[in-house]
C-alpha cells in the first residue's frame, strides 16, 4: 500500500511543496509510456493503448507528443519543436518553453543539432541520423477511422489484417474523382503488415518514413495511442498499379526566400488579386539555404 511507503519516505515534505519530477511526469507515468514505446517499436505501425495523462496544455494541442518527449528526454538532449514545419509557430514555442522549464534542456532550431525533434504535421527536409528521434503529434491515430467509427471494429480489422474496406475506399475515390483524393494522413503499409496513419504530414513527407536512419515515435494524447516506425523499415503508401501514389505538385514554384525547388512549400496569398508567393514550410532549412545562397 502506497500510503505506508509515502509516510516512510523521508522526502515527502518536498512533495508537499509541489516539487515536480524531472520532466514533469511522475516516474510511474514515464515507466508506463516507456514500456509502451518499446512494444510500439517491436510491432511497427500497431497502435499501443496507454494511460494518457492530462497535461497543462489542452488535448488536441500535442499532449501525446509531449508525453513521449518528456518520457524519453534527458538533461543532455537538445530539443527542437516545430509546427507545420516552423520553429516559431506559437504552439511549437509554447511546447518548447514548457519542456525547457521542466527539464532545463537546450532548445535549438537547427535540425542537425537536435537529438529529439517534436513535430506537428511535418517531417524536416534534412534527413535525420541514427542519433536522432522524431516524435510526431497525432490527432487521430486510427487510419481506418474515416471508414469505420467504431474502435472495437477497427481493432478487429487490424487484428485480422482485414483491410478490404480501405482498399475499397481508395478504389471508390478513383471511380469518383479519377484520382486518389486523400491529401494528408495518407495510409501506408508498415513492415508488410499494419496499415498506419502517418499523422497529417503531407504526401511529400511519406517517403521519408521508408528505410530511414532514425526512429519515429507517434503519439495521440487524446486518443491514447502510441505507435512507432523503427529505422530501416519498409513503409509503402497504398496505391494501385495504374494509379500510383503521387506527391504534391508545386508546378515549378520556387521558394521566394532561398530559391529552393525541392522542398514542401507554403503558398502565401499576397493580395486581393490572388497573387501568390511560395516559401519553404521548413523554416530552419530555408534559413540555412538562404544563408548558403548568400555566401
Amino acid at each position, binding site marked *: 500500500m502506497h500510503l505506508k511507503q509515502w509516510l516512510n519516505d523521508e522526502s515527502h515534505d518536498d512533495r508537499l511543496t509541489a516539487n515536480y*519530477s524531472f520532466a514533469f511526469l511522475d516516474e510511474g507515468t514515464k515507466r508506463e509510456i516507456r514500456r509502451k514505446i518499446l512494444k510500439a517499436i517491436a510491432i511497427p505501425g500497431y497502435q499501443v493503448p496507454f494511460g494518457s495523462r492530462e497535461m497543462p496544455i489542452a488535448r488536441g494541442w500535442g499532449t501525446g507528443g509531449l508525453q513521449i518527449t518528456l518520457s524519453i528526454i534527458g*538533461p543532455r538532449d537538445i530539443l527542437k519543436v516545430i509546427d507545420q514545419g516552423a520553429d516559431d509557430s506559437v504552439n511549437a514555442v509554447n511546447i518548447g518553453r514548457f519542456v525547457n522549464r521542466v527539464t532545463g534542456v537546450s532548445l535549438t532550431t537547427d535540425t542537425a543539432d537536435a537529438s529529439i525533434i517534436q513535430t506537428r504535421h511535418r517531417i524536416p527536409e534534412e534527413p535525420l541520423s541514427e542519433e536522432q528521434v522524431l516524435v510526431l503529434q497525432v490527432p487521430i491515430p486510427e487510419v481506418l477511422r474515416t471508414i469505420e467509427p467504431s474502435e472495437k471494429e477497427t481493432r478487429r480489422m487490424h487484428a485480422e489484417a482485414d483491410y478490404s474496406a480501405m482498399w475499397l475506399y481508395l478504389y471508390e475515390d478513383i471511380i469518383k474523382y479519377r484520382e486518389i483524393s486523400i491529401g494528408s494522413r495518407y495510409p501506408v503499409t508498415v*513492415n508488410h503488415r499494419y496499415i498506419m496513419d502517418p499523422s497529417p504530414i503531407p504526401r511529400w513527407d511519406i517517403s521519408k518514413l521508408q528505410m530511414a536512419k532514425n526512429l519515429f515515435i507517434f503519439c495521440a494524447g487524446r486518443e491514447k495511442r502510441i505507435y512507432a516506425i523503427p529505422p530501416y523499415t519498409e513503409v509503402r503508401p497504398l496505391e494501385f498499379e495504374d494509379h500510383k501514389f503521387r506527391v504534391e505538385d508545386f508546378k515549378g514554384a520556387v521558394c521566394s526566400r532561398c530559391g529552393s525547388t525541392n522542398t514542401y512549400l507554403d503558398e502565401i496569398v499576397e493580395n486581393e488579386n490572388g497573387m501568390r508567393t511560395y516559401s519553404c514550410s521548413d523554416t530552419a532549412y530555408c534559413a540555412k539555404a538562404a544563408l548558403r545562397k548568400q555566401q
Partner: protein
Amino acid sequence: MKPMDHEIQTQQVFRTIMRAMGYPGTIHRLLNHPSHKTRTSSLQLVAETLFDQDVTFCVIGDQGMRELEDILHKLTNCPVTEPSLADFLVMTSPASGGKLLTAKTGIPEYPDHGATVLFSVESLADGSASDFLVRLTGPGILGEKYIQIQGLDREELCHLRELNSGYPLGIDSIFIDQQGCIMCIPRTAKIQLR
C-alpha cells in the same frame, strides 16, 4: 542517490534500451558507471526502469529464482506471477527447461500484451559472417547483423524463434551480459542460427 539523480539515471538506462530495441543486434553499454558491470546490478537497472506495481514478472531458470524474485520485487514493487501470465520473464540460466515456451505472446487485437524477456547471459559480442551464433534481419537492421552470445543454450533461441513465428504475436527480448552491456531482439527480427 537524490531522487532526481535517480530519475535521470533511469532515463539514461531507458534510452539505451530504446536504442537497442530500435536497432536490434547492436550492443550498448548500459551506463558508463564502472560499478554497474556485474550481471545482477545490470539486471536490476533494467528491472528498475521497466517493472512496477502495474505489471507482473517471474524468474525462470534452474537456480536462485526465488531469491532473485524476492530482490526484484522489493526493488520495484512488481508482483510475481507464473511464467504464462507474466509481462516480464527474467531468465538467469542458459536453459529454461521449456518454461520460455509458455510465455504469453499476446492476442490478435492486442499483440502488445506479449511478454518481454530479459535474458541474463555471460557475454554479448558482435559476430561476423563466418563466426556467429545468431544472424538477424528485419526492421531496424540495415542488411544483416551477426551476434555472438555466451551463456545461452542454442535451444532457447530456437524457442524464441518459435514464439515469434506468428507475427504480430510474439515476445520481445532484452539480453543483458555480465559486462553491463545489452542487446535487444524485437519480435520483428528474423532469427537465423548457426
